[in-house]
């Protein structure tokens, strides 16, 4: 039993959630392309999680049919060993997406926490953290990766994701700090300080929620950057060109098998490119939807 003056959280919580999801659905329906983006992103997540399960090891191949043209059996033809290119795209998506996710998480965790603490605490801690951020922003990523590639094969997405994340959190930290500087002067933060709440409590419970949508969108945008960064590095041959991912496919197609000059090798190059394009489009469309969901001013009533 609850008193009439108290908020009935047991009934209001689900109601709020229902309203939220109804709003989300409305935002989605307003531009059906957003639904397409969500579906596409879901497809890539499905590929990355269940693709390697669906295609058993060793992958089936036709050793007498190198660079077969596209057909019903092989929608993107076969590669230089007779493997189905579509299967390679599906298998290769795990590395790409997992790396992107790890990169994004490392970026978000480091960037957001450093930005929040620096912005809220100001003073000496702010100065120290921002100098570290400045150093991070000036680190030449590609030369470092070149050096690291002599030690690591980057065969694991964890290695690649960690390195990209550690190299890429600086900009987010700066942006979050700016937002925090604005928020910390608001009344509810002053009230929290007046109540004597601890810094971690204020940062995590008071400052983080209003910034969370911005961080969530950055997470997705970080994923796009990470996808292109890792694929670009493999494509350019900066990383050891081995393993299963789209960048390796692109590198081999262009630099070893003449995809730019030979029509029969073109599908081998276009398939991972198309996957990259679609993944980027999917993330952009989802970010577009999230932007409107979390930013009331953008909602069209």
């Amino acid at each position, binding site marked *: 039993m609850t008193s009439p003056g108290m908020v009935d959280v047991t009934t209001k919580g689900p109601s709020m959630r229902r309203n939220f999801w109804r709003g989300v659905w409305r935002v989605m329906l307003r531009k059906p392309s957003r639904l397409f983006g969500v579906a596409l992103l879901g497809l890539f997540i499905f590929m990355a999680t269940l693709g390697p399960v669906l295609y058993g090891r*060793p992958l089936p191949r036709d050793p007498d049919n190198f660079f077969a043209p596209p057909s019903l059996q092989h929608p993107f033809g076969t590669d230089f060993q007779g493997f189905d290119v579509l299967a390679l795209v599906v298998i290769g998506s795990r590395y790409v997406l997992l790396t992107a996710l790890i990169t994004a998480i490392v970026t978000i965790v480091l960037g957001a926490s450093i930005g929040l603490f620096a912005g809220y605490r100001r003073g000496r801690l702010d100065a120290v953290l921002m100098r570290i951020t400045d150093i991070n922003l000036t680190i030449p990523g590609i030369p470092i990766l070149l050096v690291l590639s002599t030690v690591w094969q980057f065969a694991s997405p964890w290695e690649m994701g960690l390195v990209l994340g550690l190299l890429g959190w600086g900009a987010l930290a700066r942006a979050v700090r700016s937002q925090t500087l604005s928020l910390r002067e608001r009344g509810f933060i002053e009230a929290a300080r007046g109540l004597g709440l601890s810094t971690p409590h204020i940062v995590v419970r008071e400052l983080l929620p209003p910034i969370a949508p911005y961080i969530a969108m950055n997470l997705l945008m970080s994923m796009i950057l990470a996808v292109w960064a890792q694929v670009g590095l493999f494509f350019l041959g900066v990383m050891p060109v081995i393993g299963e991912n789209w960048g390796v496919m692109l590198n081999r197609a262009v630099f070893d098998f003449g995809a730019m000059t030979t029509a029969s090798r073109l599908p081998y190059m276009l398939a991972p490119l198309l996957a990259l394009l679609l993944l980027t489009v999917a993330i952009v469309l989802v970010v577009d939807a999230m932007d409107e969901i979390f930013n009331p001013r953008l909602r069209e009533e």
Partner: protein
Amino acid sequence: MKVTRITATLAAFALALTACGGDDGDDAPGADDNGNGAAEEGDEPEVQRGGAYTTIITGLHATAPPNPYNPDGNSFAGYNSVRLAWVKNHPTSPTEFYPGLASEWEVTDDNLELTVTLHPDATWSDGTPVTADDVVVSSNIAYTRGSGAFILDPGAAGAASDIEVIDDKTVQFTQDPENPTREFVNGIMNMIIVPAHIYGDLLPDDFDELLQAARGEDDAADDAREAISEAGEDVVSFAPEEDISAGPYVLERINPSEALLVRNEHFHNDHLVAPDQVIARNYDGNEQVWDYLQAGELDSSHFVAVPEDVVQQIEARPGNEASRTYSPVVAGLAFNQTYEPFDDINVRRALAYIIDREQMVAVSTPDGGTAATTTSGIHQEVVGEWIGDTVGDLDPYAVDLDRAAEELEAAGLSEENGRWVLPDGDPFSVPIQVPGGFSDWIAAGENIATQLNEFGIDSEIRTSPDFTVYQEEMTNGEYPVGFWLIGLGPSPYNIYQRLYGSSNGWEVLAGRLSYNEPGESGNWKGGPETYDVEGHGEVNPGELAHELRTADEERTHEIMTILAQTTNEHLPVIQMWDYVNTQFSNTDRFITDPPDDARRVTGVTSLAGIWIQQGWVTAVN
């Protein structure tokens, strides 16, 4: 590969190791053979002249000096850098050359003395005659670099022990009579010749005394060797103010994209030189060369890896022609036998029966190699020349998966759920190491890994950042399995020293052969010192390979037969493919028509300069 890099590597190997030659009558137009490999001057007609000849070069460093000893130097063999002669890679004969600065050379029957006569008209581009003094200074510089026959190690087999100036144009070289070898002549003839009036001051005034002292075995010898080595550093870093060439061209200007070389009118065979200029375009990747070739922009291109259908597109361009010749190099998959279970011959044989070499070559290098028909250690183009009909007795190791399973079971491995496991229950894993950038090796390694995985053996490729690291780490014993070049013909010793030389424990010190235990002093292959070979009993392959340096013809064939059988039975490597030298030329502006053995001259970055100076390039009207 970037085959660029492997070509350079092969060239370096061949330069360092090959004792070459062999005259098969393919000489310059109008040049007759005088019986010792040199060409005599006749009434050579002038070639049709004019125009700029465009070819390719790699590793162009616009700021590097035109110093042939500088690793980045803008000094291009055959164009503005010369040697006494250019080594023919005749498949089986080790003493044949095309003339460079030398017009004649004579070797005594016992192979101890070589007398070289310079071309009477040989002149540097500044008008100074090329003399015996230039050869002596170049020889001394070669000692500072420890190259060819110029090795300071006392008693090192084949080292030149004396240089005597006979007259202004004649020099006599003598090799150490204690350890005469067949590589001696090649080491001399392959020497880079530089002008004494430019490079002479880089050497200490007392160089002759230092050289004598360095041949001792006391502390003074160590000091002398160190002083000579330090002089070598000065030579490498030297930056001459201008390019002084005794070749057909002089470097005019250079940028990161291309080098322009212009005719050296002082060149002694200038009447055979057709192009007024040579443009050497830089390339970093093979696809750049494909683009040039497809556009008909190159007058010639040395070997780069080209996919089969790109070859067809290049050949479809009017004027383009492809040539395919023997390349005295073989690719092998080598084992470090200090790693289990690769020490087990049954395991190595099993792998040989699993790997479909035809498929691997079709995947990795269809136009640059042919699948090895078996493992003999010798390029299949010449295996019959060396071991005759006994080649038919060798196991071809054709694909036989049942036999492979039997061999693995004999080694104690077993199959569980379709995957092969070691006796202790761990999965049998075959990591295949390849150097980054070697696209054909990477593709071949991928295909081998694919085939092994399909058979039930866990396999994957691992890459090293570059070939230098690859070689170093391989020598340090860090790779269980990796690619290794073998069969570096035509010298019989060079063919087998890659298998039974220092990498497998046998080392020549002070002229004597010694054996290092596996894991010591560069013995990374780790095979046994002796093998039990069917029909031959106990065989020490390192001793036999060493004997090839001095053996007569009959004994050479006998040794080659034993070593081929030993290699076939015990598989220190699995022979994968025999290289094919595929080159392109275009007939729109020039006719480039060298004989086959001139297409496989090794030790130079680009061959067209040698062809041009011999008169095998003619401008089209």
